[in-house]
């Protein structure tokens, strides 16, 4: 590999990592507060992508006819962005209300199974629904793709967009959790549910907010993934969801900067492992993961928690 290929592969890894990061942020946030591995998170992402797709065909021409030129494109993008956030968030809220809330004080792994159930339901339901169907769909080009030459490497504006959005969301989430009232409540619930309740915090509303935010993040990720990799189908959330979960664990699950760091490491490791030998690329990526975890059993940025006796 020469320098220009390496540089190009780094950008490829960054793009892949950005998509993982967008999903992993919501994953890690929900986990940090509810301690639930939300297997359905990847499907919230899929819902976001489908909502954007549907919205584009529902109002695309209307917006294009009522506004002119670039304003139309910007307005349409904003509407679709909001739509993807709302749909992702709503599905997450509903899942929380019906499938997770009744199991709140039960063994932690019962809600894991309902999470798998929710995930399967969303996938199979959309696939069986005649309007959506199982077929692959091409995602519309909301933003024109342009490429820039960055030295010897070629970078598209989507790489920059994904990187930018991932960074903005990470900062937003960090500020939210560290400096706002609801953030304080979230941290309190995460540390000790019962004590938080005694302090007068409405645990359920805090958790609902968490799901709403996590779900809307997944929705945005779905929209961006649809733009970057313009192909959507009902099972599109399984693999990225799994990878994002791994990334979140790698960074230290529950830790927001950790999720982003883990995602970029995953993205770059996968890209380079594939470049070295594409037949066993995935295996190499997993091996790296295992080695990292053996040396940092609590994840890269996770805190070591002492066992209580």
């Amino acid at each position, binding site marked *: 590999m020469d320098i220009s290929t390496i540089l190009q592969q780094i950008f490829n890894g960054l793009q892949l990592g950005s998509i993982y990061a967008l999903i992993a942020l919501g994953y890690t946030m929900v986990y940090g507060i509810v301690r639930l591995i939300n297997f359905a998170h990847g499907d919230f992402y899929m819902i976001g992508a489908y909502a954007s797709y549907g919205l584009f065909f529902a109002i695309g021409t209307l917006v294009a006819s009522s506004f002119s030129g670039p304003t139309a494109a910007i307005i349409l993008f904003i509407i679709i962005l909001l739509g993807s956030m709302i749909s992702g968030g709503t599905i997450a809220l509903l899942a929380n209300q019906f499938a997770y809330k009744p199991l709140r004080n039960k063994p932690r792994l019962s809600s894991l199974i309902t999470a798998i159930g929710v995930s399967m339901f969303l996938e199979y339901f959309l*696939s069986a629904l005649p309007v959506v169907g199982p077929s692959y769909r091409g995602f519309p080009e909301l933003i024109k793709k342009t490429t820039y030459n960055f030295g010897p490497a070629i970078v598209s504006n989507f790489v920059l967009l994904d990187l930018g959005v991932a960074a903005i969301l990470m900062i937003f989430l960090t500020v939210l959790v560290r400096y706002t009232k609801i953030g304080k409540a979230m941290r309190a619930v995460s540390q000790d549910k019962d004590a938080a309740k005694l302090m007068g915090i409405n645990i359920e509303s805090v958790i609902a907010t968490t799901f709403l935010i996590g779900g809307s993040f997944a929705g945005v990720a779905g929209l961006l993934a649809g733009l970057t990799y313009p192909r959507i189908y009902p099972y599109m959330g399984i693999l990225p969801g799994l990878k994002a979960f791994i990334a979140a664990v790698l960074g230290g*699950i529950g830790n927001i900067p950790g999720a982003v760091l883990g995602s970029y490491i995953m993205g770059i490791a996968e890209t380079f492992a594939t470049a070295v030998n594409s037949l066993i690329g995935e295996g190499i990526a997993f091996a790296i993961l295992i080695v990292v975890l053996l040396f940092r059993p609590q994840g890269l940025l996770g805190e070591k928690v002492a066992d209580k*006796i």
Partner: protein
Amino acid sequence: MKLNKNSFFSQFLNFFKRRIVLFFIGSLLVMLIIMLLHQFEILNSYIIQIINVSLVYVILAVSLNLINGFTGQFSIGHMGFAAVGAYTSATITTLLLKITPTSLPNYLVFIIALLLGGCLAGLTGFIIGFPSLRLKGDYLAIMTLGFGEIIRTIFNNINYVGGPRGLLGIPKFSTFPIIFITAILTIIIIRNLVFSTHGRALLSIRENEVASELVGIDTTRYKILAFVIGAFFAGIGGGLLAHLIQIAHPTQFGFMYSILVLIMVYAGGMGSISGSVIAAFVLTFLSEGLRVGLASLSDLIKFPVGDQWRMVIYSLLLIFIMLFRTEGLMGMKELKFLIPEEEDIDGKCS
């Protein structure tokens, strides 16, 4: 007649009064009845096939329950062990020896191949068990998932066993009695382990690892033990599966199938052998029953409801099972015939 308490005859009689022996004999009777019903075409091959698949899942779920439910080590790469067992035994029967299920000695060779597959899977379990000494909870889960995927990637790239084409033309050695007896033996062995001193040690690790270390339990040894035994039986299950459907394919041992076995363990009740058995049967029969159910529904309402709705209903029912039986179908309880007589006081296994 007055029997001497220590006479050979009374010991003999007492042996047959033990629940687990009764359970074994009872199961054999059930097996014979099913075989008879099949002979007289009351149960067709379709039902037998579903029972066979369910029994393979029983082996996989019960063995995963030993790791997850009893020892509390969150492992989600169980199908990786099954893959090792399946490929090992199938390589021996299909590629090396090229035997066919025609004579009794060949069946013996098959059983040896199956056991070898189990042993190799156990060895893999030994290797994968090591990280469990350092990692906990979800971190361990990711680790096992990673190992499972690595195993799959390896088989996908060995051309000798077919690579992504899969290992083909495996002889059909897994007949109903063989699968049935293997499943029963798995249940009995794991049940005996769980109710032994070693089993107590495993349970104490699940409840509190630090505390059990403080009372002098060698947690390292026991965690590895759980992984090795769980992996051994998973390997046997994998071998049976390969010889049942006559193909071993890397995708059959992917992440989604590990999740399916995990669902069976938790939907049945973590730490309950009978729960895993029931869940394996209920979920397999449910998935097939919905097929027939939807077909009758289509006839009834004169509107075609395709097979694609099957899994939609399946996933909804799964959610409902967990909502109404939050600790799984059996909770932590065990059916009575699996509990030793000495434990009758509270009827719980823990």
